[in-house]
C-alpha cells in the first residue's frame, strides 16, 4: 500500500511548523551551547520537512515544487497537529513539547521504516537517527527541569498542564492515515510507557482525564497557524513566481 499525498503532507507540515517554532530560539537561547543545540534540532526538522515535501511534490506532479507546498497552501490546507503550532513558550514548554513530539515521531518512524511505500520507508530510516537524538536531548532537559530548582519544577509542571490537551491528537486516526495503512492508535500505549520513564526521573506525572483538542489534521487549526504562515509565506505571496 502506498502512502497518500495528504499523509506525506501531514508528516511534512508537522516537521516544518515545529522547525519554524524552534528556530525562534536562534539568537535568544538561555546559554550559547543550547542555542546551538535547539537550532540543530530546528535544522533537522526543516530537513525532514523538505524530504517529505519533495516526495509529495513528485506525487502531485505537474512540476510542483517543495516550496509550492510549503509556501502556497493556506491555513485550511495544512495538516499538522495543533501541538506543533503552539507558541514556543519558555524553555520548559519548548523542551517538553519536543520530548512529547519526538517520542511520538520515534515510534512512528520505527514503524514506517518497514512501510510498503519504499520512499516513505527510506526517509523514515534517515530521519529516525535524528529523532533518536532529539528524544535523548529533550528527555534530559525534562529531567533537569523537573529535578532542578523550585522554579524550574513549577515551570515544567505548568508547561505540562497547558500542553497535555494537545497530545491526544497524535493518536486520533485520520482518514489519510488509515488510507496509508497507519494505525496511530497502536502507538499510544507504547508512547505513554516511553514518556513515563523520563517523567518518573523528573518526578512528574502525566495528567489524566484531560479533554483532548484536535482539528489540525483536518485543517481546523488554532489561530496561531495563520500568523506563522503569514510571516513564513509573505515573500512568496508578495512576489509570485520569483526565484530566490
Amino acid at each position, binding site marked *: 500500500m502506498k502512502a497518500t499525498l495528504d499523509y506525506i503532507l501531514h508528516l511534512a507540515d508537522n516537521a*516544518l511548523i515545529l522547525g*519554524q517554532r524552534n*528556530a*525562534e530560539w*536562534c*539568537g*535568544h*537561547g*538561555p*546559554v*550559547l*551551547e*543550547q*542555542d*546551538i543545540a535547539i*537550532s*540543530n534540532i*530546528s*535544522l533537522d526538522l*526543516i*530537513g525532514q*520537512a*523538505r524530504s517529505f*515535501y519533495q516526495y509529495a511534490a513528485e506525487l502531485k506532479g505537474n512540476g510542483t515544487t*517543495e*516550496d509550492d507546498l*510549503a*509556501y502556497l497552501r493556506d491555513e485550511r490546507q495544512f495538516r499538522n497537529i495543533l501541538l506543533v503550532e503552539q507558541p514556543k513558550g*519558555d*524553555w520548559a514548554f519548548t523542551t517538553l513539547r519536543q520530548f512529547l513530539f519526538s517520542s511520538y515521531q520515534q515510534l512512528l518512524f520505527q514503524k514506517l521504516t518497514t512501510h510498503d511505500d519504499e520512499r516513505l520507508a527510506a526517509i523514515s530510516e534517515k530521519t529516525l537517527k535524528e529523532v533518536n537524538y532529539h528524544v535523548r536531548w529533550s528527555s534530559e532537559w525534562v*529531567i*533537569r*527541569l523537573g*529535578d*532542578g*530548582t523550585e*522554579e*524550574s519544577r513549577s*515551570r515544567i509542571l505548568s508547561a505540562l498542564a497547558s500542553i497535555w490537551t494537545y497530545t491526544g491528537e497524535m493518536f486520533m486516526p485520520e482518514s489519510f492515515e488509515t488510507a496509508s495503512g497507519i494505525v496511530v492508535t497502536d502507538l499510544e500505549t507504547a508512547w505513554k510507557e516511553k514518556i513515563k520513564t523520563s517523567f518518573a526521573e523528573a518526578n512528574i506525572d502525566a495528567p489524566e482525564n484531560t479533554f483532548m483538542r484536535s482539528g489540525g489534521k483536518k485543517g481546523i487549526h488554532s489561530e496561531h497557524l495563520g500568523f506563522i504562515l503569514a*510571516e*513564513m509565506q*509573505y*515573500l*512568496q505571496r508578495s*512576489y509570485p513566481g*520569483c*526565484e*530566490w
Partner: protein
Amino acid sequence: MSVHDLEKHFQDTIDAEIKIEPLDWMPDAYRKTNIRQISQHAHSEIVGMLPEGNWISRAPSLKRKAILLAKVQDEAGHGLYLYSACETLGTSREETINDLHSGRAKYSSIFNYPTLTWADIGTVGWLVDGAAIMNQVMLTRTSYGPYARAMVRICKEESFHQRQGFESLLVLSKGSEAQRTMCQDAINRWWWPALMMFGPRDSESTNSDQSMKWKIKRKTNDELRQQFVDMCVEQVKLLGMTLPDPNLKWNEETKHYDFGEIDWNEFWQVVKGNGPCNLERLQARKKAWEEGAWVREAAAAHAAKKQKRADANAA
C-alpha cells in the same frame, strides 16, 4: 628575571613569530588588549545573530531557510570559540557577557543597522561577512595562540557565509525588476557601513601602533579597507549592480581604487549608541540572558543533585 627582562623576552618571542600561549608571561597591557579585542569580536558574533536571525522565519524558500538558520547558528559557534579563547586569559564567559550588557564592552557597529528586506541578508553575507573575513584572515596569524586557532576554525566556516550571500544576491540580480531594485537598494544601504567596519583611519586609531608591534593586528585599518574596496568593485560587476560612490575610480599610480569620504560623523554616532538599532540589539541580548537565568540555574542544580546521589550510592 626582572620585569624588563621578561618584557624583552616576550617581544623577542613575538618578533621570532612564536605564538604566545595562555600560561606564558605577558605584559598586562597585552593581556588586556587581547581580552578587549577577543571579547569585542565574540560579542559581534553574538549580536550579529540578531539582524540576520530576524529573517529566518521569513526566508523565501525552504532551502534559503535552512541555509540562513545554519549560518546564524554558525555565528553562535564562532562566538563560543572566541569566548573560550578569552577564558584562557582569565576572564570567565559570564564576566565578559556582563561587560556587554552593562555597555562597557563594544561590538561591531555594523549590527546596529537594520535588515529591512530579504536582499539585506544576501548583502550582509557578501559585504559584512566579506569585510569581516579580511580582518579574520589576518587574525589567523595573530600572536596569541588560542585567538589564532579560533580564527582558523572560524575562517574555514566563514567562507561559506560570504559565498552563500553573494550567490543569493546573484539570484536576485537575475530575477524580476522588483528583485533587482531590492538588491541595489540593499547594496546602497550597506556599502558605507561596511567600509566603516574597518574602523577609524590609521591617523586616528589609538590602538593600532602597539597592536601592530605585538602582532595582535597585522595590517592597518586603511590597508584592509583598501583591499576590501578593490575586491568589491570587481565583484559588484558580476551582479550588474553599482556601488553608491561617485568618487570610485581606478588610480593608475597607486594601482588601487580611490573612493569617497566616509561619513565619520555617522560612524561615531553609531559607536556612541545612536545607531538605528543599538537599543534593540542590546535589549534582545539582555532579555535572552535574563530569561535564561532560571534555566542555567536549574541545570546546575540538577547536576549537583545527581552528583550527590551518585556519591551517596558509592558510599
